[in-house]
């Protein structure tokens, strides 16, 4: 591992409710083109449930200039089924690679691949299983179905979809579209996946497993996910996420994803690429307490942030701006505010803090990467998008948020995330 290699980001490919592609996306953030829509789920004409989420407008995988035959091969494998999350991944990789200016048309492109998602294919699979089970149960021609017949009929119909839930096939599909043959990996560390993926990509390059790497993550809201979060009591039914606010009432999903291209500073400079920032390093800590509840009182998140600073050779006072998870759920917001306050306790003034979920929603497995994309563009443009929807910070939280879009010369920024299952992570980026 050559730790002296400086890793930089040279391509950004976002897909979100505020816009598709780097420039549209950034303008969407600056102009606050928020698009929250009500999703209603019907079963045989009967309303099952409804929820708000940040919806991507006008997304069509056929509009990204990807070879039709390659997309057709994926559809063929999926038996005609379109998996929107997979399409987001493919589009995010395409946008990021195009943005980087790298040529990926040949098999010797030297590109590695890291994909991240919390549950790729699981929701369509869940629907398929539910549909099949329901069909078999109401089959009036059969007065009796033996357990063996039921299981056998079931197995044959969903085997292929079930196989795809294991995600290696999706890694294969995405790699194939872009002629990627170097080291590849699928990552799932819940909401922190994007930050784990960035560190992984940097290690792939530093260990010379690939000359450069593309990272992509995505998510698409489904009713099954909504029902789970609703039952946990952390979904905002009004569709308005209010990070760190006195009146916060939960998270709101956001569709889409993001891609990023990483390579060495030397390579990027040699080919005259646009460099958004250097990826300095990441810190990670696995709390190991509960899946769905943060261990208030632990110092796991503080450790992740402190480790990120150490690995980046930074001191707390070097950080100009922090973008935490900011989900808008009281206990999680408190957990984050406490960690940030402790890590930066001796920093005067403290770094500025802002959050992005009110713009793009909670993109689950892709949230940290998508918000890192916003942070990188903020860094590049020296503009800090303010935290929306937080009129009054909860008085229990020791945190001050950027409340107004601010122009400020930025040099070093931190993205942090405290995810389900206690995956706590933080990474830092610095202008080159």
């Amino acid at each position, binding site marked *: 591992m050559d730790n002296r290699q400086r890793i930089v980001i040279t391509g950004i490919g976002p897909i979100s409710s505020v816009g598709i592609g780097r420039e549209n996306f950034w303008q969407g953030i600056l102009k606050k083109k928020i698009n929250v829509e009500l999703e209603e789920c019907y079963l045989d004409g009967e309303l099952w449930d409804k929820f708000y989420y940040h919806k991507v407008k006008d997304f069509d995988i056929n509009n990204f200039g990807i070879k039709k035959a390659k997309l057709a091969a994926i559809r063929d494998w999926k038996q005609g089924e379109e998996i929107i999350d997979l399409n987001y991944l493919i589009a995010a990789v395409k946008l990021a690679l195009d943005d980087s200016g790298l040529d990926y048309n040949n098999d010797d492109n030297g590109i590695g691949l890291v994909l991240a998602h919390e549950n790729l294919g699981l929701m369509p699979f869940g629907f398929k299983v539910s549909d099949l089970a329901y069909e078999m149960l109401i089959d009036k021609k059969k007065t009796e179905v033996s357990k063996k017949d039921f299981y056998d009929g079931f197995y044959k119909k969903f085997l292929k979809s079930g196989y795809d839930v294991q995600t290696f096939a999706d890694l294969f599909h995405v790699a194939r579209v872009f002629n990627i043959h170097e080291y590849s990996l699928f990552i799932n560390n819940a909401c922190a996946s994007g930050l784990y993926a960035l560190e992984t990509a940097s290690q792939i390059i530093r260990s010379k497993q690939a000359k450069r790497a593309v990272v992509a993550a995505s998510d698409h809201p489904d009713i099954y996910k909504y029902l789970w979060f609703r039952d946990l009591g952390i979904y905002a039914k009004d569709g308005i996420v209010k990070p760190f606010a006195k009146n916060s009432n939960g998270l709101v999903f956001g569709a889409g994803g993001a891609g990023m291209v990483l390579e060495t500073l030397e390579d990027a400079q040699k080919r005259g690429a646009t460099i958004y920032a250097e990826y300095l390093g990441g810190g990670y800590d696995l709390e190991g307490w509960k899946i769905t*509840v943060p*261990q208030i*009182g632990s110092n796991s998140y503080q450790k992740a942030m402190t480790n990120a600073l150490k690995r980046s050779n930074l001191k707390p006072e070097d950080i100009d701006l922090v973008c935490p998870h900011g989900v808008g759920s009281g206990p999680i917001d408190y957990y984050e505010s406490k960690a940030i306050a402790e890590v930066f306790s001796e920093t005067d003034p403290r770094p500025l803090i802002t959050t992005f979920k009110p713009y793009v929603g909670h993109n689950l497995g892709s949230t940290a990467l998508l918000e890192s994309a916003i942070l990188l563009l903020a860094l590049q443009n020296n503009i800090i998008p303010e935290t929306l929807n937080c009129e009054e910070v909860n008085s229990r939280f020791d945190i001050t948020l950027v409340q107004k879009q601010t122009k400020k010369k930025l040099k070093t920024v931190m993205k942090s995330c405290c995810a389900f299952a206690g995956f706590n992570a933080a990474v830092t980026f610095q202008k080159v």
Partner: protein
Amino acid sequence: MLDEVIKDLEVELKELIADVSGREVDEITTQASFFEDLGIDSIKAIEITVAIEKKYKIRVKDEQVAEITNVAKAIEVVKDALAKKE
């Protein structure tokens, strides 16, 4: 062994909750709601769970964290976990 441990459970839990929440022990009746009667919010409720796990060396399930909304519920969860330990 288990009977001995749970004998003073109610008293112990009231003291623990008073300690974490900053309320007086006398205010914490067995059925008093954390949220409606005692002003304990979801953040303090998690801190109470952390303290309970530490004191009794038990593991409270994820879904039980939100269920601990009064002393009676806390007793139930602790008894259940202690029984499983036995």
